[in-house]
């Protein structure tokens, strides 16, 4: 039988919140603290001191924004949670009741508004480019936009209050205005390479990326089992592949021809080149799907993975995680503007919803035709499909399905794959069911508060409905 869940005690949200509170409480006199026992007289000493003062000043604003980030991650999962805005000691009552979802949203947005101008505006263009990866003004604006988009979404806005969509649209517009100014955000012109190596950090598309040292772990986990060192790992579903539109005429012999280029840039399909060979999943082929631990779906992951890394010789490569990127902001804007004003009303802002959506689709190297549907409902479906494709594997999909209240149907349906066979030199592709999925809509739209926290709280913490 299954082993118990690995208990993870690090990287918890409230530990991050406490670290932010602790630093804020112990750095109020940072100028004096930084001056103790050091040279502030010589030219270089003075410069170092001044740089340290600048950095701690930014760090104090960053701590506020990171605290807001941790709260945003918490409410995305649990709904309202206790708001802790200072470190709690032995003498404090630590049994705090949950604040409402909306109260935490107000707290997040309030702090982001208050501290966004105390942050480094843009690390890339500053004299501290090495610090890129720390929080900047653009990140704070993007976090506000995402937070308000979630708050406006059906899950958190059951009455469909349009004022919430207007607030989300205004916040996304703030990012667009900043992007055209000091942020200098653009769409990268290479959708494949953007997710590789240091490009994810240095590209003008990135608003906030988290940096990691070089590693071969993502490749080890997700290269095909037939590549030495690979484990197949996460394999894309047929459901996702079907979301990529045709760009030209369908080819009856090759379902992957004439598709949205992002398909071939994000997913390894049969009869395509990967790791220096042509993937062949038919009987007797190198990637024969009947082999132990070969892909059950007929696809392999490509996004984020370098091609042809030599795992046997432990070749490694840098992978940075794009938390906020410009295309995501354009899609947030398109979604919120459509709900607030419809597809073609710019409301005096920089772009209409349609212009923002089509800008993502017309990225150099992607070049998908404009979306022309006219009704807000059809446009909504187009934005949702675009998010699914553009942001595939970037850990957005589950949360998008929840906030759109589509999980009850989508996550309760079996996922499909494709079986590959070969007759007379041509591949035949047959859809198959890979596995069933269960989503209980009576409770799973929110995580349960961990039972251990409920038990400790002496009845103060209320559990979410159904758990």
């Amino acid at each position, binding site marked *: 039988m299954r*082993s*118990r869940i*690995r208990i*993870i*005690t*690090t*990287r*918890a*949200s*409230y*530990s*991050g919140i406490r*670290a932010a509170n*602790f*630093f804020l409480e*112990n750095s109020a*006199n940072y100028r*004096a603290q*930084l001056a*103790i*026992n050091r040279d502030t007289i010589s030219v270089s000493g003075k410069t170092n001191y001044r740089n*340290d003062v*600048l*950095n*701690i000043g930014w*760090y104090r604003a960053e701590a506020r924004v*990171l605290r807001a*980030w941790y709260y945003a991650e918490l409410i995305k999962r649990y709904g309202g949670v206790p708001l802790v805005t200072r470190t709690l000691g032995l003498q404090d009552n630590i049994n705090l009741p949950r604040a409402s979802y909306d109260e935490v949203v107000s707290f997040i947005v309030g702090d982001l508004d208050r501290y966004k101008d105390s942050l480094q505006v843009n690390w890339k263009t500053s004299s501290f480019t*090495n610090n890129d*990866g720390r929080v900047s003004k653009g990140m704070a604006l993007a976090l506000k936009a995402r937070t308000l988009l979630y708050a406006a979404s059906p899950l958190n806005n059951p009455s469909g209050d349009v004022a919430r969509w207007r607030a989300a649209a205004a916040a996304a517009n703030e990012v667009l205005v900043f992007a055209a100014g000091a942020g200098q955000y653009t769409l990268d012109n290479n959708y494949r390479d953007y997710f590789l190596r240091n490009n994810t950090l240095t590209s003008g598309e990135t608003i906030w990326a*988290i940096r*990691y*040292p070089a590693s071969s*772990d993502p490749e080890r*986990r997700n290269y095909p*089992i037939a590549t030495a060192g690979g484990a197949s*790992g*996460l394999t*894309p*579903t047929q*459901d*996702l592949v079907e979301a990529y539109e045709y760009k030209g005429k369908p080819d009856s012999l090759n379902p992957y021809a004439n598709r949205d280029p992002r398909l071939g840039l994000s997913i390894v399909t049969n009869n395509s080149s990967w790791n220096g060979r042509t993937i062949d999943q038919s009987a007797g082929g190198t990637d024969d799907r009947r082999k132990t*631990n*070969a*892909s059950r*779906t007929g696809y392999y992951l490509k996004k984020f993975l370098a091609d042809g890394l030599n795992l046997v010789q432990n070749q490694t490569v840098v*992978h940075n995680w794009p938390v906020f990127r410009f295309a995501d902001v354009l899609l947030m804007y398109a979604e919120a503007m459509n709900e607030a004003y419809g597809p073609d009303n710019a409301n005096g802002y920089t772009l209409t919803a349609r212009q923002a959506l089509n800008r993502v689709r017309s990225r150099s190297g992607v070049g998908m035709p404009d979306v022309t549907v006219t009704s807000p409902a059809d446009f909504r479906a187009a934005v949702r499909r675009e998010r699914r494709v553009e942001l595939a594997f970037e*850990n957005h*999909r*589950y949360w998008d399905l929840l906030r759109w209240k589509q999980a009850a149907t989508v*996550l309760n349906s079996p996922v499909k794959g494709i079986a590959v066979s070969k007759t007379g030199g041509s591949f035949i592709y047959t859809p198959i069911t*890979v596995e069933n*999925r*269960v*989503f*209980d809509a009576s409770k*799973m739209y929110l995580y*349960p508060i961990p039972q251990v*926290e409920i038990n400790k709280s002496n009845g103060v913490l209320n559990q979410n409905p159904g*758990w």
Partner: protein
Amino acid sequence: MGVLGLLTGCQKEFLDTRIDTNQTEETLSSNYATLFSYANAPYTFLRNEFTMLDNNLFSPVSDETVQTTPGNSNVLFFNNGSWNAISNPDNYYAG
């Protein structure tokens, strides 16, 4: 697991994530290097999104991907709906 690879302007022990949270204000103010370690501390709790679940992306929880070897993986709790308040593989609520 990846180590957070951010750099500080002054290269001051950013990667040293051991945090003595019992420092007094006196010991703290006596060492400005410590200030930078506290400044970096809020970053050290950011989750590595490359390893959100089963040391891999969060994607197989949704309809995007399927875990090849589900036998011992935490994603099964989500896929078959058996997760709960006691066993939630994505529980990063408190330490």
